[in-house]
């Protein structure tokens, strides 16, 4: 019997989930250790072994692989905690990363920040100018050498960087994605001058047209590459010392894993790994529950993350934004749309109630945590409304201070609005749910889908209290709250369920239909590279699948639409079919008649994703059946709860999740207390405990 282990290193906690491919799932939790995250990983594995009832060495020896998601790279970038990096680019174009196409001023800002132009700045430069140097060389759009690489200019540029103590260098030249020869030669020269220096080439990290994003991507990859290399090396050796049998894999933004030894060279691909675990978990749970279209919502104390699964596949994006810079990383599309349980309620200058986007964060946290917070948050409102018990979470040790919550709401919201504390709390709850609904709807609609065709999954500590309400706002009929053994470590569960996914892309802008032979040549080259890369993972796959896509647009549009391309030998008819599919997809996104093929269709970037399927498909264990649908045996208390401003406080049953069984039916209004969270079943809705221990809430008939 072999194990697979998913380890998710978050900012506060490290979660682990083990699956034995025979129906056993064990979870563990330990504090994260920011000084050296590998310590927290070793700690959580020790707890996991204890929970499993096996010595650590034996557990590791039986482990097929560990899939690891880490927030450390992203944190390092966001906090600016990265080593100095040198940047080498084409003469005349150093300032691309300072001009930032102007958009670096506002990319990734919330709406209220976008409107406040004078509150924006460009201080988040990637590197100081003295670390950015130019070399003499030039290619044109076809990749033809216009000016040959002046190797003396390279040597002097590299020396100037090395003299400044730089040990990691990003190389990104104009049009290098069409012809990498100059970038490759620069790497050789760096190697001659300093064999230990870390070098990232844009033609490898991100061979995509548009130099600013490619430069930024390459620089960030060089910023986190050395740290990731050191960290993974350290962790791998500790695991090997501990007797780990299989390889260590690292989760990537694209929702698949990659061997730890392969990760540092394209380090940027791992940057969003911690965000995507939840979506992968949703896909896996969806397979068990038969859900193909899922809105995955992960609501923590400070973040509200949304991912989408359409027809069984997570929705992907080819670009993300980090620190206001556009970054070319194929990624599962995860939107941060709000501030979670800590979102602060406040009154604006016009006397209107607002919730968020500011958050009380984990410190000081909501007023009711008694840690110095004085501003009212969602969590405070939930406490005043009776949704949360004053005793705190079942699994927690800390009581909540309802008076502090009431004071905060009274002074900051109720009195300015002339409302009672209770009505003010209900208003905060309602505003928060409606706004979340708007943002959710926007997220779904902008991918060209109708939210009414989706099931919503809600996990994270702060989501289940509101999920049924915001799901109803967007018209979703069924909500699933995963509550089984992995409720608190859903991301780690997703990691354990993940396969190896590698992607390669390349830009070759051209007018459609591009000759089938040209496209075929590109795809075969990408597939050949992927085949080699899969071979380096140190794993045996059950099967390997290649998926081809191409990004198309009408003439000079900024945004491209990604369309699938058939496998095998391509014909001219295939290319025309791809154009037709683009036009169909475009019309679906923007409405019939909005496309106009007369303007011409251009192909921009070709991409292949290879999935190496691993022989694990973790299944949640089944829960015992209830004798009767009536959940009376799980009733823990009845308390006054307000879920609706009009109805006010109502005597509401409160159930202890630990006593619920498969088949119990809970009619709203009701509250279910789970060790890790609190679930609300609103009035006129019905919740059912399924065979895996999840709560399924139907929002309407």
């Amino acid at each position, binding site marked *: 019997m072999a194990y697979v282990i998913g380890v998710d290193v978050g900012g506060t906690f490290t979660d682990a989930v083990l699956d034995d491919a025979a129906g056993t799932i064990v979870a563990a939790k330990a504090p994260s250790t920011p000084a050296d995250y590998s310590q927290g990983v070793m700690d959580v594995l020790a707890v996991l072994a204890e929970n499993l009832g096996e010595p650590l060495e034996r557990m590791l020896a039986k482990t097929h692989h560990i899939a690891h998601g880490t927030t450390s790279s992203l944190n390092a970038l966001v906090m600016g905690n990265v080593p100095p990096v040198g940047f080498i680019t084409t003469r005349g174009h150093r300032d691309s990363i300072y001009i930032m196409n102007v958009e670096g001023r506002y990319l990734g800002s919330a709406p209220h920040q976008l*409107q406040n132009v*004078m509150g924006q700045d460009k201080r988040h430069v990637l590197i100081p100018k003295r670390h950015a140097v130019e070399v*003499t060389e030039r290619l044109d759009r076809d990749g033809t050498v216009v000016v040959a690489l002046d190797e003396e200019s390279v040597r002097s540029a590299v020396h100037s960087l090395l003299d400044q103590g730089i040990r990691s260098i990003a190389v990104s030249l104009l*049009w290098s994605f069409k012809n990498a020869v100059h970038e490759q030669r620069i790497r050789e020269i760096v190697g001659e001058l300093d064999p230990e220096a870390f070098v990232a080439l844009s033609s490898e990290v991100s061979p995509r047209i548009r130099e600013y994003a490619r430069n930024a991507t390459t620089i960030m990859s060089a910023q986190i590459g050395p740290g990731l290399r050191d960290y993974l090396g350290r962790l791998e050796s500790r695991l090997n010392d501990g007797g780990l049998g299989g390889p260590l894999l690292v989760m990537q933004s694209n929702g698949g894993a990659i061997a730890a030894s392969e990760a540092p060279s394209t380090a940027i691909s791992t940057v969003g790994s911690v965000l995507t675990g939840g979506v992968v978990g949703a896909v896996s749970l969806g397979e068990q529950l038969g859900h193909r279209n899922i809105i995955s919502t992960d609501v923590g104390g400070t973040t509200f993350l949304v991912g989408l699964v359409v027809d069984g596949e997570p929705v992907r994006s080819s670009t993300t934004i980090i620190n206001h810079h556009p970054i070319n990383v194929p990624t599962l599309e995860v939107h941060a749309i709000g501030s979670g349980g800590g979102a602060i309620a406040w009154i604006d*200058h*016009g006397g209107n109630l607002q919730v968020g986007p500011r958050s009380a964060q984990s410190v000081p946290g909501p007023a009711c945590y008694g840690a110095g917070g004085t501003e009212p948050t969602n969590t405070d409102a939930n406490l005043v409304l009776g949704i949360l018990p004053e005793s705190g979470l079942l699994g927690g040790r800390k009581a909540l201070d309802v008076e502090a919550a009431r004071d905060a709401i009274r002074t900051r919201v109720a009195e300015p609005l002339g409302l009672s504390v209770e009505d003010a709390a209900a208003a905060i709850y309602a505003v928060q749910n409606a706004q979340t609904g708007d943002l959710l709807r926007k997220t779904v609609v902008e991918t060209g889908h109708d939210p009414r065709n989706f099931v919503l999954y809600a996990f994270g500590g702060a989501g289940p209290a509101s999920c049924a309400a915001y799901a109803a706002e967007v018209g979703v009929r069924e909500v699933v709250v995963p509550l089984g053994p992995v409720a608190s470590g859903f991301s780690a569960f997703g990691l354990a369920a993940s396969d190896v996914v590698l992607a390669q892309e390349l830009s070759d802008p051209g007018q459609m239909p591009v000759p089938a032979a040209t496209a075929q040549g590109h795809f075969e080259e990408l597939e050949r590279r992927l085949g080699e890369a899969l071979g380096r993972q140190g794993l045996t796959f059950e099967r390997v699948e290649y998926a081809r896509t191409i990004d198309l647009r009408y003439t000079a*549009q*900024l945004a491209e639409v990604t369309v699938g391309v058939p496998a095998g030998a391509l014909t001219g008819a295939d290319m025309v079919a791809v154009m037709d599919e683009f036009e169909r997809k475009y019309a679906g996104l923007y409405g019939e008649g909005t496309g106009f093929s007369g303007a011409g269709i251009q192909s921009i970037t070709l991409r292949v994703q290879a999935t190496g399927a691993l022989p694990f498909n973790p299944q949640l264990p089944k829960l015992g059946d209830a004798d009767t649908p009536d959940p009376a045996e799980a009733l823990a208390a009845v308390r006054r709860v307000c879920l609706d401003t009009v109805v006010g406080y109502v005597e509401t049953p409160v159930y202890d999740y630990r006593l619920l069984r498969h088949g119990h039916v809970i009619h709203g209004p009701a509250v279910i207390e789970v060790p890790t969270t609190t679930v609300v079943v609103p009035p006129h809705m019905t919740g059912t405990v399924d065979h895996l221990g999840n709560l399924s809430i139907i929002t309407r008939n």
Partner: protein
Amino acid sequence: MAMTIPGSEHFSSRPIDPDVLAAGLPDSLPVHSVTQEQIDALDPLTYEVVRHRLWSVTDEMGEALKRMSGSPIVTDANDFDFAICDEVGQEVQVGLYNTMLAGAVDLAVYWTLQHRVRNPGVKEGDMFLCNDPWVGGGLHQNDVIVYQPIFHDGKLFAWTSAICHEPDLGGVGLGSFSPAAQDVFSEALPTPPIKVVRDFEIQDDVAEAWIRRSRVPLLVNLDLRAKVGANTVGRKRLHAVIDQYGADTVKAVMKRMMSDAEGRLRGKLRNLPDGSWSATGYQDQSHAGDRAVHQITVKMTKADDHLTFDFTGTDEQAGLINCTYAGLRGGVMLALMPMLANDIPWSAGGLMRCFDLISEEGTINNATFPAAVSRAPIGPAWSTGSLVAECLSQMMDRTVEFGDRVQAGCCGTHDTAVLAGLDQRGEVPTPFLNIVMDVMAAGYGGRPGADGMDTGGLFCIPMGRIPDVEMTEYLYPLMTLWRREEPDSGGPGRHRGGVSGSSAFIPYGTDLPVGLVVASSGKGVSQNTGLAGGYPGNTAVGVVARDAGVKRLLAEGTLPLRLAELAGSQDLQACYGETQVAPDDLLYLHWQGGGGYGDPLLREPELVAHDHAEGKVTSTGAEASYGVVLRDDAVDRTATEALRTRLREERRARSTADVAPGPSHAPSTGKRLDDNLVAVGVDGVEVVACAHCGRQLGDPRTDTVLTLARFEGPTSNAGSHVTDDPGQYVDDEIVFRQLCCPGCYTAIYSGVVPAAHPQHVIDLDRYVQA
């Protein structure tokens, strides 16, 4: 006054009382509205929920429009916008793109309700198209609005609109821009509202009549469909909101959004000092061949919670540097929204109730038909906004609370260059037309607490962007030799203006000459003015280097990085002109940075050293403009102190000061007026004194103006970033003028202006009253 064409006044739209407008509508067009009681009865919860929903409707429209358009001006420059209006056209919510368009959208709806209801009718399923800047919807003909009435239960409920700048709509000039134009007949044809969608279907006859005029009809067609698509998104979403919350509730929220924005702006105004502030700015040249300077002047009066902008004294319309009333109003909005409504939802219909406009017809920012207006948004409307921003900044600089809203002049225009020719890189040669966007990477003005943003963009397009060099080279037969930030281009100041940049292009992939149209301003007279003694940013420069020999240099393995490295001659471009870029020529564009704030001699020397390390200031500029001496990249404190003393002495030596020293006051006892001036109480009256040395500069009982030391000399005195020969552009005498405290010689004002420029900053009554 300029001649106008009889009958053209029919097309002049003006704001109208919404009640009067509604009352004038025939019974055939029933209108949905709500009573004040219904608006007052809204509970805060419903209001906030529905308000947020309407915001997300507008936002989705914008996303759809931006993604669907195929014009780089939309997708890259973000020169577009969109709005939701109430049933009579008042703007409930506008987008964050080209903010000037907020001044124009409602005018088109008002006009449509006055002139299209009876014939051809305003019905469900209609969409109108308009590019007549007198009617509204846009500032010049290239701004094309598509807008639709939305009906609920058979009643006119609201309007949505989408506007994009189209790359070319015909006329004699490339990009519909004729630098020699004397009237609108040389430009794209203005089209008053026509019904392009009827019964939810695009009318091919109308659409094709529309695109036929363009040099790039396919792009214009794609954009037309993008705008129709964006409106469709808006209609569907708005109907969904109505279905969920009810028409009356949604309408009540729309009305209250406007009154809420109005109320909050009025509240802010009440907390600002009353008074009047004036500003005057310039367009150097009005068209190709012109050598005159044309002024726009404004007097802003703030009384209690209301603003009045009086533009009396603005020059007569001339050449093509004109805008209609829509541009005048849009110009005001470009300053007002980001500066005063930064934290107020942009319910522009409410915000616009807080000010009045006074302006003479037939002037450059209130032009009558048939004035040429292709320069409207980036010429006169923009200048209007810059002058309004200057007045607002000077008003707010007196406060601490609004100090973070104060800003010296930003880049004063979009330094237009249109390149068109034949792309011979493919199998079949194809025509191309490129409006260069690099020039949008302009500098922002310095502020009391911060430097201006370097290459931060254009103040009037909060979400603008410029295309990647690779995208330009992919789309057009051009090679960009460099695109970079230019050191010293930010106006020197205690807080430096943001630097601008420069780009250099050569034809690459065409062996025919490339046509070039240039249209800019701020080349001979500064538009990016400094504030509180700060210097203006750089003057713009455009050069075609003839027979530059770049291809030979490339073949030899050299990448030239400056004009001095090129062979041949340099052909300096006037503000307006038409020429060709031959295969061996090079086009160089250096656009405007931002103005500085405060006296640069007061800048913290360490910041200058940092600027030097980051390529924002040269060591020469550090010494000449800031009096900072750098040794091995570090500040030489002693040498810096000596140099700064010497520079003050030079100011003293070159200036004329009229009067003997007067009384002094302890500056710390004064009330802030700006970076350099304080109001000090003396015998129950406030007098103005220098904030640095305490010298009294004006007493309202005896003076009408401040007593300052005055210097006027060649523009080269402003720094190497300003043209040393304005005579290359205009005949008017252009000077560097500096006004200093006659006690300590701190700069109170530094400008590059016509010698006849009125000196508004010395008006004593803008600071204190007797």
